[in-house]
């Protein structure tokens, strides 16, 4: 059968398989789906092509992020059961189909097709793709789960770094009248449709690298020299397992949900507003000492810190522990936000430094959470639990911009705001981080009554079910 390579027996690693093939497999998925953060490149061309408002086009991105949360939450258990190979392949099909249906929508000037394509199909691909490598990485790297998941989730931050310049170059290739270096130059709709077809095909092929390389370790496998008993040296690290259905009944899940929600809400507040914010902080009357090109560079700098924070801080958590790591994200974050609000406008370098570290904590919060879940709930259905936890991201995606935009709208008009106008919003974020800090402090080991007895690996046990059914 053509798709037999997705079967269970082809997903379990043969003896000697290198675990270092798994991070590039995960990166292939996350670098591809990370494109979702580069949608601003073709936002204006789509506004002009469809004659629609910015809001109507912005809905495409919002829909994709909402579908990411829904798909991750709903499909998490399925992903854990069928394994990473089938899940990655499914994600690649949805992600590529999203682009191709979107291209059809642009070519035929049917905006609803773009909503269905990129928003719904693409969003489902995002959700399945995001969680598909997580539990596999944790199984291959029981000695360094933070490093492993940090490497993969770093890719989600890095996807936009690739997609933004690549999309601009492709648009100028498909539309000779478009020059990305000229302010006000906008590509035509036909060029965006061709860009969507290209991205759909290229991302599908890159994601296939992940599909063909990913494997689940054979039952009982462990890395050379690894002693499982040494992992449980910290009080929060469990060797027990909790199912996804039971995890959502524990206070630990909702405390961690609150931690992620608060960390993401605070970070999104700055990310959303980065470009106008740096100009407003250094405004003299109607003009700013920070030029628009420098502000765009600031956004790029934040993207790099967002990406590297995911890898560096998540890896650090393997040494200092997950709970202390989140104390740093939230506790030091409180100090940094307060400094940004009070002395951030005194020097551009100080503003940039404070914002960069804050955004590195934002990225670190995303990348460290799968290892935190593994510590608390075990490996049994960690992918499914992660999927359910990502609803905190969707909620923060609404709350963060609402808080910052609400305060700024009350203070004045865009282009007239100054540093002092940001203080109420920034001090609110200090409060949000304080709530997250307390929630993190309250996290304790899960009660024994939620432990699964005899369940350790959802993928392996799904295989046992299949075998026993077929032998009946």
């Amino acid at each position, binding site marked *: 059968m053509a798709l037999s390579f997705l079967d269970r027996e082809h997903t379990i690693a043969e*003896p*000697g*398989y*290198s*675990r*270092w*093939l798994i991070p*590039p*497999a995960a*990166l*292939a998925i996350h*670098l591809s789906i990370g494109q979702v953060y580069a949608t601003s490149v073709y936002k204006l061309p789509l506004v002009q092509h469809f004659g629609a408002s910015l809001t109507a086009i912005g809905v495409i991105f919002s829909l994709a992020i909402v579908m990411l949360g829904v798909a991750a939450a709903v499909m998490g258990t399925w992903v854990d059961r069928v394994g990473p190979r089938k899940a990655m392949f499914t994600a690649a099909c949805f992600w590529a189909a999203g682009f191709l249906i979107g291209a059809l929508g642009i070519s035929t000037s049917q905006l609803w097709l773009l909503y269905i394509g990129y928003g719904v199909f693409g969003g489902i691909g995002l959700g399945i793709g995001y969680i598909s490598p997580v539990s596999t990485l944790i199984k291959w790297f029981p000695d360094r789960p933070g490093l492993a998941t940090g490497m993969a989730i770093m*890719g989600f931050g*890095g996807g936009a*770094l*690739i*997609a*933004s*310049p*690549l999309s601009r170059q492709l648009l100028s290739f498909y539309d000779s009248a478009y020059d990305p270096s000229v302010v006000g130059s906008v590509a035509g709709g036909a060029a965006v449709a061709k860009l969507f077809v290209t991205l759909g095909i290229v991302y599908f092929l*890159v994601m296939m*690298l992940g599909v063909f*390389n990913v494997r689940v370790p*054979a039952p*009982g*496998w*462990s*890395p*050379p*020299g*690894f002693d499982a008993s040494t992992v449980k040296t910290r009080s929060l690290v469990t060797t027990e397992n909790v199912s996804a259905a039971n995890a959502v009944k524990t206070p630990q899940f909702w405390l961690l949900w609150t931690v992620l929600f608060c960390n993401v809400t605070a970070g999104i507040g700055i990310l959303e507003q980065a470009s106008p914010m740096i100009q407003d902080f250094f405004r003299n009357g109607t003009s700013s000492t*920070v*030029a628009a*090109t*420098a*502000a*765009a*560079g*600031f956004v*790029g*700098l934040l*993207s*790099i810190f967002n990406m590297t924070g995911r890898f560096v801080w998540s890896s650090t958590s393997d040494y200092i522990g997950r709970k202390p790591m989140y104390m740093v994200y939230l506790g030091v974050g409180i100090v940094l936000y307060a400094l940004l609000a009070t002395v951030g406008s005194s020097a551009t370098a100080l503003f*940039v430094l404070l914002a960069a570290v804050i955004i590195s904590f934002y990225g670190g919060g995303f990348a460290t959470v799968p290892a935190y879940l593994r510590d608390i709930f075990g490996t049994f259905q960690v992918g499914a639990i992660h999927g359910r936890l990502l609803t905190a991201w969707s909620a923060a995606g609404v709350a963060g911009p609402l808080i910052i935009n609400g305060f700024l709208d009350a203070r004045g008009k865009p282009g007239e705001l100054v540093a002092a106008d940001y203080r109420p919003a920034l001090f609110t974020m200090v409060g949000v981080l304080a709530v997250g800090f307390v929630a993190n402090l309250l996290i304790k080991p899960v009660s024994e009554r939620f432990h699964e007895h005899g369940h350790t690996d959802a993928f392996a046990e799904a295989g046992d079910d299949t075998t026993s059914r077929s032998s009946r």
Partner: protein
Amino acid sequence: MTDSQHGGTSSYTPRLVASWLIVGIPLAYGIFQTIRNIIPLFGG
């Protein structure tokens, strides 16, 4: 069961190099392009 019990990972070296290059080169391209855009922030 460990890697060392099965002769290590040396037979996977070409595949490892190719896989890391396929994800590493685009990432390096993206970081390079982004850093080019950051230069004006520091007065370049």
